[in-house]
Structure formats: C-alpha cells, structure tokens
C-alpha cells in the first residue's frame, strides 16, 4: 500500500495472540465506560453497552476520554477481564500505557496494534483473528 501503516505494538506479545473481534462502533473510555471487575462496557451512551470485552480482540478507531483509562486497563489485566489485544488506527497514549505497565509490572502481554482504515473495516465483530509478535493482524475465519 502507498503509505505504510504505523503498525506498532505497545506491549509486544511473547507469542501470537488469537481471539474473536469485538469491533466498537464508537471509541470507549476505559475509565467510566468499562467495569474492570466484570469486563463489561458500562457507558450508558455507548452503542455496545453491556458487551464484554474480556478476552476479545478489541477494535476501536481511536481512544477516548479520561486519563484514568490506563489505570483501569491495567486493573483489568490483573483481574483477567482485559481484552486479548487492542487494534486501533491512531496511537493513543492512554491505551498504550495500560499495556506497557502491564508488561513492566506483571510481565503480561496486551498487544496494542495499529492498522490503517481499510484493515480496520475488515475486522468485523465475531471473526477470529491472529496477531503475530510482529504486530500483523491476520483473519483466521470470517463467517
């Protein structure tokens, strides 16, 4: 493609990560919008209110909202309610920091991968994808 997408991994995975996509229609603020105890979206204004992000490959274009999102994401990692990976179009410090500190503090990998708009559009909710240690996203099966 003409412009190489800035695919970067905030928390490089030790091995490939596999999971089922949850593609958010709107970005999510982890703080105030997500419950680290249950792994569910609790933002009453969010179209996917009530969906669980735990273990999913969470796809959202950009970040959103509160700086505390990093802390909530880290706590979700500790509680086992975090996504398996996060795929975004634009790098977001708040999301990246949760993943970076999860690795530094607990040695737990939460890859945050950047893709371009076209790739993002292909990642529909429900499909299974693989994320390689180099940050590339591969669709395993599409319904």
């Amino acid at each position, binding site marked *: 493609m003409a412009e190489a997408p800035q695919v*970067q991994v*905030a928390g490089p995975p030790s091995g490939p990560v596999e999971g089922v996509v949850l593609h958010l229609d709107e970005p999510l603020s982890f703080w105030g919008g997500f419950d680290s105890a249950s792994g569910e979206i609790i933002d009453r204004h969010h179209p996917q209110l009530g969906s669980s992000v735990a273990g999913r490959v969470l796809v959202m274009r950009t970040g959103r*909202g509160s700086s505390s*999102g990093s802390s909530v994401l880290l706590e979700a990692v500790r509680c086992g309610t975090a996504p398996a990976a996060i795929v975004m179009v634009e790098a977001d410090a*708040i999301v990246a920091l949760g993943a*970076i500190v999860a690795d530094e503090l607990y040695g737990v990998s939460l890859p945050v991968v950047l893709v371009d708009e076209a*790739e993002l559009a292909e990642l529909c909710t429900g499909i299974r994808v693989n994320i390689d240690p180099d940050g590339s996203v591969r669709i395993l099966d599409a319904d």
Partner: protein
Amino acid sequence: MPGTYAARVALHLTDDDVRRLDGGDGPAVRLAMRVVVRLAEALGAEELLDISGAHVDSCLYHGRAPLDFAERLAGDGAAVVVPTTLNVSSLDLLHPDLYRGDPGEGELARRLMDAYVAMGCRPTWTCAPYQLEDRPAFGENVAWAESNAIAFANSVLGARTDRYGDFVDICAAVTGRAPAAGFHLDENRRATVVFHLEGLMPGLLESSLLPHVLGTLVGSVVGNRVPVIDGVPDPPGEDWLKALGSAAASAGSVGMFHVVGATPEAPTLEVALGGRQPDEVVVVRSDDLRRTRDLLTTAVGSDLATVSLGTPHYSVAEIGRFVEALAGRNVHPAVDVYISTGRGVLDEVEDRGWAEGLRSAGVTIVTDTCTYVTPILRETSRPAMTDSAKWAYYAPGNLGVDVVLASTRECVESAVAGKVVLDDAIWTEGHFDG
C-alpha cells in the same frame, strides 16, 4: 488481510536518557524511564524532551494494580525532579466522613495517595491545577494527565502537554522527560475542524450551560482532532473555556481546542488553522445544542434527590456566582447539594466568608475528590442534577444515577424548590440571567 509491520522510528536518546534507562540512577528511575521510552516508541516519537512540571492523575484509586505500580516506584525510592501537582483522589481528607465506600478500599485509596506524596508530589488533590497559583507559562512543556486539565493547559495556557494517561505522568515527573510527540509539536496544534456558532439566543449565550453542551457536541464530532470555535460574541473567560474543554474531552478525546479571539493560539481563525483550509466546517445552531443537552439528560420528571456542582472543581468565581444565585436562601431540606472544589479554592472561599454561609444554607463542600469518582452521594436511586456535562456524562455509568443537565442557575432554583425546575426560555428567548 494485509498486516504490514512498519519498522519503528528510531528513538534518539541522550547520554543522560541512556544512563537512566540502564539503571544508573537507580531502579525507580529505570522503571520510569522504560515507561517513558516505550510510550515514546508507541507514539512514534523521535526523541524525548525536558518537561518543567507534571500533573499526576494516577493518584485516584482504580484497584490493586495501579497501587502495585505506585508502591513499586515509591518503594524503590522514586522522587519527582520537577514541580508536580496531584489530581483528585478517592477520598476527601478534609471531610473524611463524606466517603461512603468500603472501608478496606478506602484504606487502599489512602495508601495510593501516600505513595504519591512520598515521591514528592504536592498534595493539591484537584482536577483543576490551572486554578493554582503556579501554573505553566505559554510554550512550556509539561506532562499533564487528567483530560480536562490537558485541554486547558494546551488550549487556554498555551502550555504543551500530550494527552497523557496514568503512569507516564509520574514517570515523566521522576525522569523529567517526555516523548516529543502529539501536542508538544507545532504541527499537531493547529485546528482542522471549524465550528461556527450561528443564531444563538442571547439567553443561551449567557447561560453557564452553553460551553458544556457545545463542548459535548464538539467532542463527539471531532474525536481526537483539534477544533476551533468561531462566532462566540464576547471573549469568554477561563471558567467558560474550562467547561468547554472538560466536556469536549469527555465526549471525545480532545486534548486541544481553539476559540477565536479567546485562546492564545487563535487570534484569528486563519492563525488557528495554521493558514490551511479546514477538513470540516460544522455550523452549530441552538437546536443542535438543545438536542445535546437532551441526550445527556437521562432522568424524566421533576423528582430530585441531589444537586452536584463543581466538575471540574469550581473556581472562586464559580462559587461566587453560586452564592449570588442562591441569594441568601437555603436549599430544600430534602435535596443534597454538593459543590466540589480544590483545597486552595476552599481556603479563599473560607477567607471571604462564603464557605460558612454555604454550609448553613445546607450545601456540602467536597474537596480533594469529586462526587462522581467515589461513593459520596447519599441517594443514587433517585435523580441528580448537575451543571457539568462531564458529570452528566460519567455519573450514570459510575454511580448508576439518573441525571438532569442544566445551567447553574437552574440547578440553584431546583435545589431551593426541592424539584427539577427548568427554564426553557434560554432556548427561545433573549435575556436569561444564568
């Protein structure tokens, strides 16, 4: 599925950076530097830059994991190397009885606060550090977290901070370094989306509600792009800009905005746009703003249990306006009224004699924290009213409470009446004093 992996931009580190990263300044600096460097890589920064101050959001309790991080840093002897202020916490240390949460959790929240103070941060406990005396000057690079504070620092002060999340705030404070990325760089500070206000009624233009609903609308349209607002008739003051930024940063991820004629990097629309054409122009009319207010209001009817004001923390001027609107009346005994503010503002409000007056009128003053981040509200099963779009945005999810968003004046009248009283004249008519 294409999955191209672009090689990381090489991050240039100075000798001092390398020493910190290699543990030459001890394990705490090493950990802090690793976080700063890894964030710089994730953001595609080419180098780090010196910061002259920090505002730390990580002191609000969100569970054991962030506490583990803070205690690891503090236990390894971390100390801030630049003046560092602290955001709201989960506890009101001046009025500890207000906390209605689990006592065990309260103790952990206290431990988190202690860890940050032990690292040399100032116990300011406010989400409005720009209301303190020492605030960053135009052009100064700082590392601020807390979304409303970030928006204010960039937009109103003309200081430079990226949209930092928790952890890197303290790591930047401990190392004095931050990624040269985002809003630290000129090219990311120019506006790309224009919002033009058109035909707003004088009543709405004077209402405290305008920046809240406008900010919400702006944030939901721009996401993380930089907006410029044109057509605000009178140059708005800092409280207005604070409200706009806090709402925009909640509804979107706005880290910087311009208001033509009011913010320092927008003397004209052309300058705010950096001499280029905007990507998008949005015309804002009264009906759009009214719809935005309606979207943020989740309660129906006139039942009212709580009025919560001061998100972000009220300034002295805002408390003054509340006192004026209350006009010597008491609030209704069946309504709990909370005003959240910083300790520094409270000191001044005490000196002016307003605090005692507010307490005897039935108002509860909350410091060090905020009523939507920790269990303080006595009653959450019945509706709450607020003059803050940010509070309205987050409280239903955080507290499970239904909200009514209104102007400060409407909140005061409702608090006195003991039920929701809205004055729809602001949407249709001329003068409305509030």
